[in-house]
């Protein structure tokens, strides 16, 4: 192919529908609009199979088809000569298309009519540029590469997970102009994603959870593929703004333990990219916008690169912290300001390891169990200095396995404590070590 398919990705956004010519075995040609031509790779596209129609009959008997595409920016025409291979009704391509189609349907007022039955995979035999009199191409947005360079440089200097997350949030928000962003980490055993960092929202939402498979973020995690909706006036099925409140868990002895999800109430564009490292899913980077058509293929490219760097950094920082865990602990510092004043009540519900601070829900799960252990050790033994290693070795915490990101759990706990108030904090004291800073005496109440 002389022109790489990637060059015409702007034509594949679904902003202007493509038109497909097919031909039956009887020789009768057929022309039909097609909602979605999806870029699979440089040799393949996937077309949305939404209806059992003439196009469907034709390609099953005669796999040759020709698509006419229009560049929505320049009005340049392209013809794609393609050959039908197979239909996929699950997996990353299908899920990405399904989410994107929800956006297209919403954009074109076709909700309820457009439903993806399958992704028809075609091999691209030839990409033909049609002569014409197109408008000049808009200038390519410059800064993306520079923004990624700056991210790469900043990540290379990071020594801890919170620094790495801060670097990503800053570059997304400032250099890539993605003003509403969050990073969620995977809780593998629970099959949930928990927010560890966010920017551009009224509330941080740190600790809020999303089920794997739920909404744009959950589908990106489950399918390990980017999911981008570039126009969604009402793609409610996919909108991450759909709160998880409908997911009232089975009656729990603990009171409501839900941290509000921070996302936009009426997003018009969303993009979720999985964070992978060594072929493991670590989490998801998510951005959204109140504007239509905000996220292009180029934004997706940039976010995939950012997520890749972040994934590598998370893994490196984790292994760095682990190798440091064996080192001798620094001598415990004298508490310069011993805890004083009214006691701070901690209540722990073993059913889900939720912990309440002065009656206010703080955290649950592994992070909750960690806090309860730290508090117990502090009250019973007067300890303030701890290491990641002892947490990892403590069977009472039920840490899933070595691949679990303990750093992320500790960061979540640290940030939740920060948001709660100044009296109980976690402070890093070195690689793999931290201090429980106790400003008021702790009173432990098992539930």
């Amino acid at each position, binding site marked *: 192919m002389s022109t790489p398919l990637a060059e015409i990705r702007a034509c594949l956004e679904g902003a202007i529908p493509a*038109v*497909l*010519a*097919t*031909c039956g*075995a009887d*020789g*009768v*040609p*057929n*022309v*039909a*609009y097609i909602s979605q031509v999806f870029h699979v790779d440089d040799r393949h596209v996937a077309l949305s199979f*939404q*209806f059992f*129609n*003439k196009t469907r009959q034709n390609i099953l008997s*005669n796999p*040759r*088809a*020709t*698509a*006419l595409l*229009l560049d*929505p920016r*320049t*009005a340049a*025409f392209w*013809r794609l*000569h393609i050959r039908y291979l197979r239909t996929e009704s699950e997996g990353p391509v299908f899920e990405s298309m399904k989410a994107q189609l929800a956006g297209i349907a919403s954009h*074109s007022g*076709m909700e309820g*009519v*457009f439903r993806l039955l399958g992704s028809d995979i075609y091999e691209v035999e030839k990409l033909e540029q*049609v*002569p*014409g*009199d*197109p*408008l000049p191409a808009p200038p390519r947005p410059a800064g993306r590469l520079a923004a990624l360079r700056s991210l790469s440089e900043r990540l290379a200097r990071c020594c801890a997970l919170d620094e790495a997350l801060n670097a990503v949030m800053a570059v997304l928000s400032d250099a890539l102009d993605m003003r509403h962003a969050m990073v969620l980490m995977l809780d593998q055993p629970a099959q949930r994603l928990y927010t560890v960092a966010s920017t551009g929202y009224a509330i941080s939402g740190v600790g809020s959870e999303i089920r794997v498979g739920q909404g744009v973020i959950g589908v990106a995690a489950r399918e390990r593929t980017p999911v981008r909706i570039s126009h969604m006036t009402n793609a409610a099925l996919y909108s991450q703004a759909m709160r998880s409140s409908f997911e009232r868990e089975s009656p729990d002895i603990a009171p409501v333990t839900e941290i509000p999800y921070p996302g936009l109430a009426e997003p018009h564009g969303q993009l979720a990219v999985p964070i992978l490292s060594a072929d493991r899913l670590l989490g998801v980077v998510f951005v959204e916008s109140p504007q239509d058509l905000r996220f292009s293929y180029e934004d997706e490219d940039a976010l995939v690169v950012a997520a890749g760097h972040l994934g590598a950094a998370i893994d490196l920082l984790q292994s760095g912290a682990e190798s440091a865990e064996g080192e001798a602990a620094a001598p415990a510092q004298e508490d310069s300001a011993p805890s004083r004043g009214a006691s701070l009540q901690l209540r722990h519900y073993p059913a889900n390891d939720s912990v309440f601070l002065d009656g206010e829900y703080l955290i649950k799960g592994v992070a909750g169990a960690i806090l309860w252990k730290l508090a117990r050790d502090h009250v019973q033994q007067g300890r303030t200095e701890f290491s990641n290693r002892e947490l990892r070795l403590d069977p009472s915490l039920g840490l899933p396995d070595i691949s679990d990101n303990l750093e992320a759990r500790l960061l979540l706990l640290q940030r939740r404590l920060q948001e709660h108030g100044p009296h109980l904090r976690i402070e890093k004291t070195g690689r793999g070590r931290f201090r429980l800073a106790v400003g008021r005496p702790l009173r432990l109440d098992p539930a």
Partner: protein
Amino acid sequence: MVATVRLPDDLLAMIARGVSCIVGSRDEALRPSIMRAVGSQVAADGAGITVYLSRSQSRQLLQDIASTGDVAVVFSEPASHRTVQLKARTAAIRPATEADRPALDRYLASMEHEIGRVGYPVSMARAMLAYRLDDLVALSFTPEMAFDQTPGPRAGSALGASK
């Protein structure tokens, strides 16, 4: 004489007003060809339809129509997605002339309005439908079959009674 269809008045009116128009055919090996028309008009009696194609943009398509006669033409209103497909087994091709200019101008004006309704500027319609008259051919046919292709449950159903 082949059977022809009489289109419902509202669809005929939509086509006559000037909406998006895409033409397809196929070669002897059943390879499909396709291009967007830069103009269309309906004959005064409502039976014959003429669409305009640029030779430089439609070489394969015009060759296929000339050799097989098979033609499929879709008309679609961008804002509503109301769509109809017409098919015929014979079509006449002739060079466009100055006499076709008024029809082409009317079509462009209509399309500027139509794609303006879905948010595109006039410059987009003009670039998409740009042509040189000496590069244009007029393709005329009488629809033998018509199908409703508006997305939805009735998509694909045959339209109009044979006459």
